[in-house]
């Protein structure tokens, strides 16, 4: 069967796509800006639901970053102690001050030693009675039970655990030594514990990142279902998969951004709440330590993580569910 038209003057000209129009960068940006704002508006219209999703993402992002910052501060604190690690060498009771002084001079000439300070029994007793509040009791003692002590500061670069214990061994081997003790051994143990805790935070971060991915993925999946009719119609009138995908990817990104902003607020507020009691505690130790969060760096990192997870989560959801919606 052959059906002829009343007029045949129609030409082929607009069957071909106007490529210049489609490739213009201004149009391209305009389209993206439009879709981004459209997605944003949709999120605002959903008010409470959007807020709850953003809150879940915010808390999930705030938890690991807060913990990490806390650990970082502890590490910085212990690091400042580690720098001044020193060894106390308690000499035998029978070693007198003059012998000790000669010994101190010879030890001070070792390459791994920075300085040696000699504490005579008199100085030690005086210091002890001043700080301990036992002055009255100590005054009852007939003679001074304290030995001569050499406080040995290792040279810079000799403070790591291996060097410290080698030095401790060498000092213990001196005939005059009763006991050589590493004063800040616990700082090194703390550092080791902090390393473990840091690994733990990494694991928690990975798990919570996965949770954020799933939350965003699920939210986008619901949104896809809600907009099923719209997807069908747009596909029917020539929308490419990229066009259909775009608003959902922007939604996911916005969720990530809101979550990151919320996480940043939570972490900063948490540290602000902690700063007063920490200041008090540090004051008790005559320290000058303050909690640091580096707000801008934190914001940048959280934004990066949020946008990445938002995009990835929505990409996964869109990839899984969009193909199922085809006109029929």
């Amino acid at each position, binding site marked *: *069967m*052959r*059906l*002829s*038209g*009343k*007029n*045949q*003057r*129609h030409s*082929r000209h*607009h*069957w071909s*796509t106007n490529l210049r*129009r*489609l490739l*213009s960068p201004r*149009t*391209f940006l*305009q*389209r993206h800006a*439009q879709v981004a704002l459209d997605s944003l508006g949709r999120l605002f219209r959903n008010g409470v639901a959007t807020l709850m999703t953003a809150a879940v993402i915010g808390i999930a992002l705030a938890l690991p970053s807060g913990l990490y910052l806390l650990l970082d501060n502890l590490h910085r604190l212990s690091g400042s102690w580690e720098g001044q690690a020193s060894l106390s060498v308690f000499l035998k009771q029978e070693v007198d001050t003059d012998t000790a002084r000669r010994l101190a001079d010879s030890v001070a000439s070792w390459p791994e030693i920075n300085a040696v300070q000699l504490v005579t029994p008199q100085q030690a007793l005086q210091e002890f009675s001043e700080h301990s509040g036992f002055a009255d009791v100590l005054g009852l003692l007939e003679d001074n039970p304290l030995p001569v002590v050499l406080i040995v500061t290792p040279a810079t670069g000799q403070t790591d655990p291996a060097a410290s214990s080698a030095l401790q061994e060498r000092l213990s081997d001196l005939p005059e030594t009763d006991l050589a003790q590493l004063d800040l051994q616990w700082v090194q143990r703390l550092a080791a514990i902090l390393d473990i805790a840091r690994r733990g935070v990494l694991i928690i971060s990975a798990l919570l990142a996965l949770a954020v991915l799933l939350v965003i993925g699920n939210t986008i999946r619901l949104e896809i279902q809600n907009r099923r*009719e*719209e997807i*069908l*119609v*747009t*596909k*029917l*009138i*020539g*929308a*490419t*998969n990229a*066009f259909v995908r775009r608003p959902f990817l922007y939604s996911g990104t916005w969720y990530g951004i809101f979550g990151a902003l919320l996480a940043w607020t939570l972490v900063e507020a948490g540290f602000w709440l902690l700063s007063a009691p920490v200041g008090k505690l540090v004051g008790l130790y005559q320290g000058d330590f303050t909690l640091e969060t580096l707000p801008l760096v934190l914001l940048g990192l959280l934004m990066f993580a949020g946008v990445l997870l938002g995009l990835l989560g929505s990409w996964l959801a869109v990839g899984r569910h969009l193909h199922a919606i*085809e*006109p*029929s």
Partner: protein
Amino acid sequence: MIRFDNVSKRYPGGYEALSNVSFDMQTGAMAFLTGHSGAGKSTLLKLVALIERVTRGQLFLNGQNVTRISTRRIPYIRRKIGFIFQDHHLLFDRTVFDNVALPLIIAGYRHQEVGRRVRAALDKVGLLQKERLYPITLSGGEQQRVGIARAVVNKPMLLLADEPTGNLDPELSREIMNLFASFNDVGVSVLIASHDLQLIGELDYPVLSLSQGRLVQPGADAA
């Protein structure tokens, strides 16, 4: 414009909706597609719209063989075809303007161009005053006309309409058909599936009659 070359369509499960259908609709033609429900009208339109794919035979659109066209290229073919559905498929969360603008947004037109073309299309269907309204506030005939404006806004070469007057009273139906005729007058090819034989009889256009998936001679199916 549309050429079917011994086309058959068999759905999964074995039901053959179209058998050895051949016809050639020239560019600039307007034709009706009739037949009882189940005769294959919808299937034929779906094949042209590339919603369903041909099982056997060849399908040409504007001289291009689209029988085995890749899924990725289908959207670009669809942009050159305007669809009108019985139930409009309008998006009820957007204004009339935004509904009509959709094909232009998809095709990536400039903002100013979109406004100009949408108003031209709305003017053609007589709804220029209602661009800010939501489709839900419009009557059935008006909604159908919004659907038509959306189909023609992109200046397609081919209009496909599936029972466009199915829900309308005779007077409105005639109005809609006249609208299609006016698009045909400026060179757009139009294929309309309809079972409104009385209305088709009043208009002087070729008729494709389907019966049980086969083309029959015009008029033979009318009884």
